[in-house]
């Protein structure tokens, strides 16, 4: 073949070679087909471990029970039993080391998540006792009268 054909072809071959060399160094060695097929499973295998290493923030009721069994027992036997401690007390993270004390959400808004009356026929929401926040002792925190661990009205403080 003629020289004027070969010379640009050499340039192209060198560019391809450079790309392959760059690819060799830039693409992680664990990159490949790891899942079902190429379409859905082509990825870096190490990333699965990255996701599994994410820290757990919500430790669960059993973890609370290790140090606060009375509070867990009181709440579990009440109508608020199905509610996880951390829903109101906040995620435990590494409590008691860090944070040493959890910030409890005692706002009216927290109680209104379930007990704010809404016209929702056909939903379980209408089965929960609800109040209208504008008329039911506005401005007074719910916990001044109601005990969140023992919410029965007979137990009112």
């Amino acid at each position: 073949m003629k020289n004027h054909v070969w010379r640009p072809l050499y340039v192209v071959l060198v560019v391809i070679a450079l790309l392959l060399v760059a690819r060799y160094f830039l693409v992680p060695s664990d990159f490949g087909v790891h899942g079902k097929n190429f379409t859905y499973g082509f990825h870096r295998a190490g990333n699965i471990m990255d996701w599994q290493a994410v820290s757990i923030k919500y430790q669960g009721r059993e973890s609370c029970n290790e140090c606060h069994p009375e509070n867990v027992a009181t709440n579990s036997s009440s109508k608020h039993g199905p509610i996880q401690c951390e829903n109101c007390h906040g995620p435990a993270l590494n409590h008691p080391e860090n944070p040493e004390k959890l910030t409890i959400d005692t706002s009216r808004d927290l109680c209104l998540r379930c007990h704010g009356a809404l016209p929702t026929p056909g939903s379980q929401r209408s089965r929960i006792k609800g109040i209208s926040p504008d008329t039911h002792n506005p401005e007074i925190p719910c916990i001044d009268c109601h005990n969140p661990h023992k919410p029965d009205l007979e137990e009112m403080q």
Partner: protein
Amino acid sequence: MKCSRRDLLTTVCKAAVAAALPVAAFRFLSPAEVRAAVADPALRWGFLVDTEKCVGCGFCVKACKLENEIPYEAPVSRTWVERYIVTRDGQTHIDSPMAGQNGFTDPKVRDEVIDPSEITKAFFVPKLCNQCDNPACVQVCPVGATYQTKDGVVLVDRDWCIGCGYCIMACPYGVRFFHPVHKVAEKCNFCYHRISKGLKSACVEACPFGARQIGNLKDPEDPVTRIIMTQRVAVLKDEYGTKPQVFYIGLDRNVR
């Protein structure tokens, strides 16, 4: 043209090698190898949402955002709760203020006052990633940054994602969003760090009413799998062919 025996044999050999090359190049896509790559066939995560039980408290959204480090005041979330209010005139009013992270406390829908006597039905629908069997979001990724694990969860590689946003546009369920801190695509992954350690997803754990459940769809004894197999369940946007793996009890035709 003259052609000796030697010439003929060399040409044939060369042609055979040339013909074999492309086949060798595509060998890594062969079905047998793909089947071998699938290791644990006994685990496939699935989700069950009982919309009849949801009261719109939003504790699931709060737990999700704190567990997965999504900035709390950012208007994005991996999971969210929608409120549907159907009125007598046939209209459907839908809202999800701040993904429902602070619960539904206001009877007004998007500042619109709805006469309670006009409401025929009203309910809440929690939504999250469907971890589809045919995830459209994975198909469109140009760099291989998002993928489906062997147990069926779709993950995003934060180090590899270039933030092009194709997957955010491709998801028919609007599940994906742009992470405001990491500047990459973000999505629900059933709390992969929790489920792979034997815990339940944060939203499942936080739900006081049992409206959210997670289970192994490959285990016929799993309570979630049993309900999906024996009761009437539906999926969202079946017509897209994505084969979603989040099943709903009590889904209404107004739910989109």
